[in-house]
């Protein structure tokens, strides 16, 4: 588990952004170090996806700056993206391709090593996708299986940053637990993970730090407390209060 003072692989500094008159990010700053899992927690419209889009270089912030391994994604989006792996909420894969073929294709686009036995198979082993499913077209895969393929792709790329957008949305408890195991695998590889989610339990189970995002502003940031990690009840009360105050 990394501390807040670890060297930041992923960093946002005073990000502000608006869509027309609607402000979605308001002075957001955060840092994620190597081997750290950061959960950005917030309701719909809190600014989670916009934050990820800024790191991906899809959105240029109105002010402030972001960096991925020291690269500013707003000026060098391709380089920034080359240093990160991204898993969207709805895992987009090619249904007519197998798990192997999907990973091989995206690895090729990323210019990464795509050797099957030394790269792809170990990544699929890490995510626990059974061998019999690897050659099958992903059109028939469940969301959990598709997510395993996407995480395997991220691991196979061997990049220092992992961005996850609502990763546990739509997963059953068993699949969520498996997913949390995947993040542990990523952590062991030293990957800095930023996870945008509204799933408090999953965040509490796996994150090193949790940032509460409200109306584009980081309200509070809490860190795991050693082996005891988080007091989930206390977190839930805080999260609920924030949601209620926002609704009011």
């Amino acid at each position: 588990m990394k501390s807040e003072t670890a060297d930041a692989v992923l960093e946002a500094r005073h990000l502000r952004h608006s869509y027309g008159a609607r402000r979605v990010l308001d002075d957001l700053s955060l840092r994620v170090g190597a081997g750290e899992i950061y959960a950005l927690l917030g309701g719909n419209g809190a600014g989670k996806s916009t934050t990820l889009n800024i790191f991906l270089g899809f959105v240029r912030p109105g002010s402030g700056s972001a960096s991925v391994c020291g690269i500013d994604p707003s000026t060098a989006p391709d380089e920034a993206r080359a240093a990160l792996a991204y898993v969207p909420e709805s895992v987009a894969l090619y249904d007519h391709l197998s798990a192997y073929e999907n990973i091989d294709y995206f690895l090729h686009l990323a210019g990464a090593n795509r050797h099957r036995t030394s790269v792809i198979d170990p990544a699929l082993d890490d995510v626990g996708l059974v061998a019999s499913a690897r050659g099958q077209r992903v059109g028939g895969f469940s969301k959990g299986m598709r997510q395993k393929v996407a995480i395997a792709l991220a691991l196979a790329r061997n990049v220092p940053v992992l961005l996850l957008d609502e990763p546990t949305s739509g997963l059953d408890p068993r699949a969520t637990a498996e997913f949390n195991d995947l993040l542990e695998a990523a952590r062991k590889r030293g990957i800095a993970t930023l996870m945008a989610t509204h799933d408090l339990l999953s965040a509490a189970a796996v994150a090193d730090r949790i940032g509460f995002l409200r109306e584009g502003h980081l309200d509070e940031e809490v860190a795991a407390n050693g082996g005891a990690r988080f007091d989930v009840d206390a977190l839930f009360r805080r999260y609920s209060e924030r949601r209620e105050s926002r609704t009011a």
Partner: protein
Amino acid sequence: MSGATVRIAREEWRWLARSRVALVAGVLLLLLIITATFTSVQKHEAIDEARARYQSEQIEQFYNQPDRHPHRMVHYGQYVFRPLAPLAFFDTGVDAYTGNMVFLEGHRQNSANFAEARQSSLMLRFGQLTPAFVLQTLAPLLIIFLAFRALAGERERGTLRLMLAQGISARQIVSGKLIAHAAVAGAIVLPALLALTIMSASSGASAQALLIILGYCAYLIVWTLMALVLSALVPRARDALLALVALWMVTVVLLPRGLPELVAASQTLPTRIETEVAIGRDLKAIGDSHDPDDPYFNDFKMEVLARYGVSDVQDLPVQYAGLVAMEGERLTSDLFNRYAADANAREDRQNALVRTFGLASPLIAVRQLSMTLAGTDLDNHQDFLSQVESYRYSFVQHLNRMQAEQIPAVNPGEDPRIDASNWLEVPGFAYVAPNPLAYAGGRIAQSFGILAAWLAGLACLLILAARRLERIAR
């Protein structure tokens, strides 16, 4: 070209290969092109062989006529057949509507001039199952069906973001898709390329064949670009398909048929009946050689008598009726030629206007190019008619001269004839097919220019669409 771009193209081909609908549609179109090519070649060879046989039989019949009065031979006339251009199998153009057999006789313009079918630009509306028709009309539909989801589908599925997230640019994605679908367009042209190569090898029309292939490649890439631009601009694949089919209907069905109608309405051609009435009126105005008081032919008689230094036609060393026939033919031919030139000029104006409409529909540009290079456009037909008319005039005057020189001027008898061996001295018709590159170089360049303008315009649009793709990927 980056490795990622090539890989995107390869994946697009893999998707096409695994998509049964795309595969079946592609195979069907290829079969259609092969069938159209095969049947067109067969038909071309059969027609060519039949025309050569009929021409030979007709020549034999003409030269085997018995002793006759030359004027009867003038009205016995001759049929001449236009040999098919070597590449006419590929694009029959206006041949099927203008006809290729012409009857030649004295006092009359050849039977094809002023024909009702020659309503010029309206002939551009027609289509037959030839390789050209399949490539012009049906191939764009296949390109649309294969390419409409190329970018809109990635966006809809969410894979566009994932692709961009691998660190590649939207320009690389669009380039990969373009390579994939341009290669598909090339595969569509391939059977026609093979047929044209084989058919042109022995006929010396290789340059025309090469330009035809280049033209169709450009045309199909225009459609590929159109499909990709709309696929990049429209958020949903279904909407891209609808927009492309609508575009196909407008540029392939509506404009190529509607615009020539507008041209025909603005640049009208007289009908055959109107032309014949006008010619009849002008013929009457020229004079009547049988009327002893006709001022023109009285002057002509005086001029002939003076030329030969005699005072009476009975004293002429030649038959006066033969000289009158020659003069009459000269006058009527001049008149016919003026009307033909006027009709040709109107048709040329119509066609020039239609050609500029290629800017509105690439089909018009490629169709004009294809017909010209295949030697089946209206200009080629006009050239044939011009050669035929020139021959008809010399043929008739040859016989009229025989009448003047060999039929006795005085007391020719009740049924004067000349020896059948004279017919062998009448030269036969030798058609010299014009080289489209020589007589229509400007028009060919214009069609290529229009296609190049389409390519350049759409390429710019695609570059802009690629930039927009990156922005909307969020």
